[in-house]
């Protein structure tokens, strides 16, 4: 009995502690799982460094106790001992500075980090003196294809915005959509405005459909792929324009075409009028010269043909 009360108390304490980090304004991840730290699964990442620096990307989905192992083969000095330390996002991790001995021609640094939420993600660096370092970049799977150009749509029309997680990456547990509101993001809830917004999510892709657009709907939209550990964001810009916008170049082109066709046809009419006017005077001369010219032609070719035949 008392053991389960202790557990419950411990869990409530954990909840209270973690509650302080939750900000209702920013779309944080879902509240951290109520699993005690020592019950998290463990994972190991190790890197052997031969040169001066290396960056290793680590993709995490769930909270984990991550053991990071760094092995350095050393440089030409091969000092018997060296100062090693850990940094998180550039800042030194407290009490991480230690002396590393040269064992089997290598220096080893190892530390276990508890990665439970988004704040624990980032860049972890093990440093050997100031000579060598290995960066571990811990992150949830990132959405690869980010569309850099805005989607253009029209007032009164509807628009479909999509987000996709590549097949090579693990699929998220769910998708969320947010709208930029000043510097913050506001989650879009289909329950609040079912007529305007529709979210269709499958495992790897999600679609946000916005109906009856107005110009104010333009701006940045964010899709979030939710993983246990954090949410990966991607953004798309929407531009809403009036139908008059493309109408202007269209009318300009139509006018240009009408003008050119009119010019061509009128020119032709004037040419034929000139021909018929000058016709009575000049045609007889023209036909005479033409017949002479042409009679030379076929006679030549016919004689050629005769010779060849």
């Amino acid at each position, binding site marked *: 009995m008392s053991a389960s009360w202790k557990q419950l108390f411990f869990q409530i304490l954990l909840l209270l502690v973690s509650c302080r980090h939750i900000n209702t304004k920013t779309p944080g991840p879902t509240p951290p799982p109520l699993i005690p730290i020592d019950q998290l699964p463990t994972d190991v990442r190790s890197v052997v460094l031969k040169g001066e620096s290396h960056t290793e990307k680590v993709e995490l989905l769930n909270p984990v106790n991550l053991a990071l192992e760094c092995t350095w083969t050393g440089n030409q000095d091969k000092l018997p001992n060296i100062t090693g330390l850990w940094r998180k996002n550039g800042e030194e991790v407290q009490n991480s500075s230690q002396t590393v001995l040269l064992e089997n021609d290598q220096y080893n640094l190892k530390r276990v980090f508890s990665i439970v939420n988004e704040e624990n993600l980032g860049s972890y660096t093990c440093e050997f003196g100031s000579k060598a370092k290995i960066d571990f970049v811990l992150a949830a799977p990132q959405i690869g294809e980010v569309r850099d150009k805005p989607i253009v749509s029209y007032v009164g029309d509807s628009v479909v915005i999509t987000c996709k997680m590549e097949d090579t990456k693990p699929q998220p547990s769910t998708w969320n959509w947010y709208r930029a509101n000043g510097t913050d993001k506001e989650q879009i809830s289909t329950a609040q405005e079912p007529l305007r917004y529709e979210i269709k999510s499958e495992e790897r892709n999600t679609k946000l459909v916005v109906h009856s657009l107005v110009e104010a709907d333009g701006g940045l939209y964010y899709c979030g792929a939710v993983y246990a550990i954090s949410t990966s964001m991607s953004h798309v810009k929407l531009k809403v324009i009036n139908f008059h916008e493309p109408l202007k170049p269209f009318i300009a*082109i*139509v006018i240009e*075409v009408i003008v050119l066709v009119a010019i061509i*046809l009128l020119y032709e009419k004037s040419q034929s009028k000139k021909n018929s006017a000058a016709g009575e005077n000049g045609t007889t001369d023209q036909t005479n010269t033409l017949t002479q010219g042409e009679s030379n032609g076929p006679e030549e070719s016919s004689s050629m043909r*005769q010779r060849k035949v």
Partner: protein
Amino acid sequence: MPPAEKSKLGYTPPDGGWGWVIVFGAFISIGFSYAFPKSLTIYFKEIQEYFSVSYSEIAWLSSVMLASMYAGGPVSSILVNRYGSRPVVMVGGLLVSTGMILASFGTTIMHLYLCVGLIGGFGLAFNLQPSLTIIGTYFQIKRPLANGLAMTGSPVVLFTLAPLNQWLFDSFGWRGSFLILGGIVLHCCIAGALMRPVNKHAQPKPKAEPAGCNGEAAEKVASSEANSQSDKLLSKENKEESKSQGCVQKFIDLSLFKHRGFIIYLVGNVVLFFGFFAPVVFLAPYAKHQGIDEYSAAFLLSIFALTDMFIRPITGILGNTKWVRPRIQYFFSFAVFYNGVCHLFCPLLPGYSGKVVYAVFFGLAFGMLSALLFEVLMDLVGAHRFSSAVGLVTIIECGPVLLGPPLSGALVDIFGDYKYMYYACGVFMLVPGIYFFIMHYYNYKKLDEEHRQDVAAELRTCEEAVQLRLRQDGKTAHETDG
């Protein structure tokens, strides 16, 4: 030696002058006909998302447009035969424009199929046939060059439309782009306005004063040569028309199916079109399959388009030379054969540089074939019957053109590799190439034979006529004396 196409048109084509303006108009018209459907593929992804349809459903749009463009061929031919090229091209331009404008307001994918696919395709058919036909009426001696230049419209317009479409899409989305494209396509109407019907009465027939029997024989030789190569003299045509099988004959010349040259061309083309477009369609995917990145793969297509653009006028010039012109069918057979060889070599060339080499050679092959495609048909059937011929050819080619890419796609899916598809396409072009060589050798021989027979027959009748004349003169001389 069977000569190149002689004009039994009843007049001398100008071979220049306003003809070059016509070539420019045809350049634009043909350019839009071929390049417009290809350039629309840029919008497919967004339209697919907007209407929530699958990729194959959106690909159907291209197919409907192409099918309607080829099926509209005979209708186009009939209209050109009746009304001439100019009104048909202008109506075609208006049709495509209307189709695109209506499509920009579309609410379902079916709406797009009808407007862009059916109406647009038909409009493009009304652009293609008349442009080719009118070149035949304006050019005789320089016709291969004119054809080559006009066919260059296709890659040039594609080159211009592709980035333009991308810019329109980024600025206006697909609806606005369709509206503006509806305006841009109206330039076909300008091309149509330029297509002044050729003045058949300004220059009299070049059969000038007969210089005795030799002159007459020479004229008849000329006409009989023309007979042997293509359609009969106008008088003979009138006889045929009076025996015609009802209304159909007046609108479209079905007697072409008895024409030896036409049948050779048709059979060969039906086979070669199976392997004609698929290699272009699958070039970029094949490159990506081999691990080449997207931009380099797209660059391959640009290389292909550039070489295509430059070889077409050059082919026209070559086709016009006195060595090639009389035997232009062999030049065409060579082009087909060369295409086949290119495709067979494609999978054997490794890496990106191999693909670049292939793109260059394929561009040359494709351009050569395209530039000559309609020129040889004109050469076989003559400018007078060309309109009907091209209508019949396009509607029969509709089948292989539509089936070719999906069949090739199926080959890729079955084997999981693109090389078998390229081998198949290579064979599909090699066999017609060899077939053309053999059949045209036979055809030229037959034509020579017929021509010799005609000449002999004419000389005999001429001698008889001269003898008859002498006897008559003798009689009259006697009578006057006596």
